[in-house]
């Protein structure tokens, strides 16, 4: 079904392949820049992944302006200000973000301040407020989950005021995303599992939330297919290049899908749980996904049913009667979670994640104020949130 009105925007050039990083100098030249600042975190440096990026510059005349490798696990305001100073002191003209969601969000925050020539990031918080085109940003993801390399969102923590500020603008979209398998080959199994479930949630919510549209559906559909076919392989055999590349592509496509059709209640509950109990975002997504699908069944049974095809394949789809397909989708997701639990102990319930039951009212209160709830097909008030959280606790 085509919505009466929708918008889809994704101008990011995507390079995908085993040694895709080698094209960095060419891409920088195409963008008309010569001195990028690299932003990354300690984990990436420790895992030795930066050497691939640095090697890509060999035999070119492009200078790396500097490398900032101390981004914390939650992108923070203070870090953004520090990096802006380095960017200016070193006369850089572009940014390369190497990392997961936190590094990429930090890079987007830095880009806002440099472009707007301001020293107060909070002035630009909000949706679709930024007006000016930004400095070229190249993103090299090192996990297959967030999809931030193709999203127009950044979330930055204001530690002093204990809040998280969201920024959404089409200008935040990177110019190039480079999906190079070498960057995820060493990702531990449990992170692969959690980030894979994060990408799966992006794709499923993009396909089932209120701003779904034919273009985001196509991205989400293929992302679900690639994840269901490759996640277990990548968890079992981390060095499997084919599976890794498939997951990088899936995460990227899921990102493009949800950046346009947005995410829903799984994210509302996940953001709230993450904010209060500090659990990994992917773990939270994995816990809530089946319960939210159950909750949404009443309104979007048809859309959930359609997902059985990419999730379970032709044979199971055709063997399952039309009226049972939605329940089968939830069963497949539960089976996937069980298998990931066996392989990596990825929690399936709040209890398994070590969350105290007393936290549930606090999580519920925060979840109903989360922006992503707007896009969920079914509304959720405090009582509903408590019910779903209790189910997810078990």
């Amino acid at each position, binding site marked *: 079904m085509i919505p009466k009105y929708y918008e889809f925007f994704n101008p990011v050039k995507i390079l995908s392949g085993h040694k895709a990083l080698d094209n960095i100098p060419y891409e920088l030249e195409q963008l008309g820049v010569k001195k990028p600042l690299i932003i990354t975190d300690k984990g990436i440096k420790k895992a030795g992944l930066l050497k691939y990026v640095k090697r890509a510059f060999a035999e070119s005349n492009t200078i790396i302006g500097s490398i900032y490798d101390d981004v914390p696990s939650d992108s923070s305001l203070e870090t953004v200000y520090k990096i802006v100073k380095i960017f200016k002191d070193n006369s850089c003209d572009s940014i390369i973000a190497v990392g997961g969601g936190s590094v990429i969000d930090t890079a987007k925050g830095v880009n806002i301040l440099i472009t707007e020539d301001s020293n107060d990031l909070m002035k630009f*918080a*909000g949706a679709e407020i930024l007006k000016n085109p930004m400095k070229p940003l190249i993103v090299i993801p090192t996990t297959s989950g967030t999809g931030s390399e193709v999203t127009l969102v950044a979330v930055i923590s204001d530690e002093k005021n204990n*809040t998280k500020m*969201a920024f959404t603008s089409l200008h935040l979209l990177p110019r190039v995303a480079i999906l190079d398998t070498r960057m995820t080959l060493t990702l531990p199994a449990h992170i692969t599992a959690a980030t894979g479930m994060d990408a799966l949630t992006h794709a499923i919510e993009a396909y089932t939330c209120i701003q779904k549209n034919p273009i985001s559906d196509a991205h989400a559909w293929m992302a679900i297919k690639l994840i269901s076919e490759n996640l277990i392989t990548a968890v079992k055999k981390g060095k499997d290049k084919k599976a890794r590349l498939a997951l990088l592509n899936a995460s990227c496509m899921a990102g493009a899908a949800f950046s346009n059709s947005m995410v829903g209640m799984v994210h509302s509950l996940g953001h709230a749980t993450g904010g209060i109990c500090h659990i990994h975002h992917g773990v939270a997504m994995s816990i809530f996904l089946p319960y939210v699908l159950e909750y949404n069944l009443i309104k979007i049974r048809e859309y959930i049913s359609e997902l059985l095809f990419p999730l379970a394949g032709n044979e199971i789809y055709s063997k399952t009667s039309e009226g049972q397909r939605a329940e089968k989708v939830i069963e497949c997701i539960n089976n996937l979670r069980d298998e990931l639990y066996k392989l990596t102990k990825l929690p399936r319930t709040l209890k398994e994640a070590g969350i105290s039951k007393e936290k549930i009212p606090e999580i519920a209160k925060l979840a109903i104020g989360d*922006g992503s709830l*707007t896009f969920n097909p079914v*509304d959720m008030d405090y009582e509903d949130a408590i019910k779903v959280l209790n189910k997810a606790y078990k």
Partner: protein
Amino acid sequence: MRKNRIYKEIKPGRKLFKVITVKVILFFLGRGFQFLSKFDKNIKNDIHGLPEGFTVMFKILPIGSKMFLKKNKKGYLKYKGSSLNEKTSDLSIFFKNIECAFLMFTAQISSHQAFAEHRISIKGEISKAMLIMRCLNIVETYLFPKIIAKHITKRLPRISGIKKQIGRFLVYFWGIPFGI
């Protein structure tokens, strides 16, 4: 011989009917918000966490009407018309054009649909914008008949029938006319 054609500037037209309609509805909504922020438990709970002096602006871009609501000392939202300075608002909710404001304020599309379709942009904390939108849904439930309210909310807020009727009576005959 034909005269040389003159290429004149074309000034933008006006949509007076829609502009006036939106202005009137903004007045009703503003006064309604003010009264119901004292009357309805759900709105009171929602705005409880906002700091005193918190100001919300609704504005129709690029040059359209605007309306301000400000949380006062007594803890409710005071309708301030268009009297405040834009720079003083803590949260600004912008409608990208008069058409989308008209669609939303005449209950042809819901606030969540307008947001999902990128018809609205927000300056400030998105979570606070969600809170205001949630309250707006409740205000609309009082102001509009059930058949319309059902169309513009995903699910009608849990308000008892009697309470809704009393609230509706009071908001139309007390809150809106007298700015209580």
